């Protein structure tokens, strides 16, 4: 059984700060991490590998050369193979273009039974690449997966909704996108770290030619969406800081709210 996991290296957005003087995002010193939902996707594949002897896991990512580090982390957690799709031609793509590239690579890997992806990446938060890979491979998809099991030749999953969840059966192969609730990802192992990060680089790098995709289908140029502008959101100015004892402060607050007809 062959499982493909889609993963992305992302800046740890919880560490991003805004420079108050220039009002721009400070990207320096922000660590790059394996996208959290993708970690859950990988963990679910690893759980299956723990249960069955016939499972192999290939992690696929698209990104710059430094994304290898993240793929090595996936290997150190227990994945069998890691492929980085890295080429200038892939850069700057929106979800439509990115999913073209990743779907083409997955097609080239071939012979897959399940494709696990994270629901969304914390830098873009679009949740679109998973479903779009499914579309381009002509596969069924279930997103927001919070529970997974394999039953015979189909998968049975719980798909989280805002007001509960639904139990969905899907034929294989299929694309499943994982959320945090799905599992608790394992850590890397010491052995895994020595194998993945040692002198011998285990990550395969595929260029445009290796993927064999028409360059007009990937990267910035092929993207239907264009970023017109970007800006740092403005925050409201300082309000009133109340002073005095707890009682004095809360009394003043309630009076002010009442006077302004807010309560």
């Amino acid at each position: 059984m062959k499982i493909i996991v889609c993963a992305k290296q992302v800046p740890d957005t919880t560490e991003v700060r805004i420079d108050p003087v220039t009002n721009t995002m400070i990207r320096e010193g922000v660590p790059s991490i394996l996208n959290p939902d993708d970690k859950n996707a990988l963990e679910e594949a690893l759980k299956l590998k723990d249960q069955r002897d016939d499972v192999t896991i290939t992690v696929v990512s698209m990104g710059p050369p430094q994304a290898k580090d993240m793929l090595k982390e996936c290997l150190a957690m227990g994945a069998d193979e890691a492929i980085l799709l890295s080429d200038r031609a892939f850069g700057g793509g929106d979800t439509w273009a990115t999913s073209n590239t990743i779907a083409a690579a997955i097609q080239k890997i071939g012979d897959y039974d399940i494709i696990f992806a994270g629901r969304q990446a914390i830098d873009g938060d679009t949740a679109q690449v998973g479903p779009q890979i499914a579309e381009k491979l002509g596969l069924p998809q279930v997103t927001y997966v919070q529970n997974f099991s394999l039953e015979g030749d189909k998968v049975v999953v719980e798909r989280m909704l805002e007001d509960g969840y639904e139990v969905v059966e899907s034929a294989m192969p299929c694309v499943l996108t994982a959320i945090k609730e799905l599992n608790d990802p394992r850590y890397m192992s010491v052995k895994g770290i020595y194998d993945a990060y040692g002198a011998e680089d285990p990550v395969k790098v595929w260029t445009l030619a290796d993927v064999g995709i028409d360059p007009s289908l990937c990267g910035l140029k092929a993207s239907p969406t264009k970023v017109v502008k970007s800006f740092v959101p403005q925050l409201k100015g300082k309000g009133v800081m109340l002073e005095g004892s707890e009682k004095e402060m809360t009394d003043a607050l309630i009076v002010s709210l009442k006077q302004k007809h807010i309560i």
Partner: protein
Amino acid sequence: MAVDVNSYKNVWVFAEQRQGNVMGVAIELLGEGRKLADAIGCELCAVLLGKGVEGLSTTLFEHGADKVYLAESDLLENYTTEAYTKVISDMIDEYKPQIVLYGATNIGRDLGARIAARVDTGLTADCTVLEISEDTKELLSTRPAFGGNLMATIACPAHRPQMSTVRPGVMDKAKEEKGRTGELVKVDVKLADSDIHTKVVKIVKSDKPLVSLTDAKIIVAGGRGVGSAEGFKLIEELAAKMGGCVGSSRACVDAGWIGKEYQVGQTGTTVKPEIYIACGISGAIQHKAGMQDSKIIIAINKDPDAPIFEVADYGIVGDLFKVIPELMKSYDNVEELMAAAK
């Protein structure tokens, strides 16, 4: 893949319904869609899929839809990606809308992404602002990125339709106009069992109390300063007294003190209540992203330098376990306090 953009007309909104109830976000989309349609000078249409849902078209007309495209089938009773994608994509091919909006619900985000790939167009996720460019009449969608640290405005110049998913709770709901009607277009559904490879076996509604943070007028939210699951009792007490809902920062959800459905912020729900009371919330940017549009923000925090005070209209520096009980007393004494203030 570029298309003749002029051959695409009208603004569509996906009228998501679950078990025969129109989702609140669909009414918000109608409200926003109306503005966009008026700015362009075109019709506003709702797309309604399901089984036995024709009656919902009245609601959609009364909230501003000029036209309702209705697709009904046994195979559309429960949402499945494949069935809904096929039906809506076929409709897009046939009727060529210039804009299609979806609520950024778990279903809307699943569906929108798949349709965008099927009809080869762009999709802007989780938008918080939609505008029509004055000169090009293009849709400009603004959305947060990098955990809310950055806002990006995105256009889709050469592909149609222009599609966006819109965050629930962000747009104003359409005003109801009783008795308003429009044109009902019944769409011929071409679906077979073999088009669908997934099956919804059962639907389980959450047994937790339904938190409707998006609709709440008052939200009392707890953060790390609450200290424990136990600490949330005080938050609940204040919320109950003021007739509001309980919210939470991500820290408490991650700590397991409260369920994910209570989370306000970039990765949780975006809210804009009349009053937002942040208790023991430091105000990480991710949290502020989800609540800074609240009309009145009241912050209670021990740390006078907590970033939450930057967005607060009223700031109280103090221990929430002392401040909240006092606040409840003051709230009860409002008449006396007002009399004394005069």
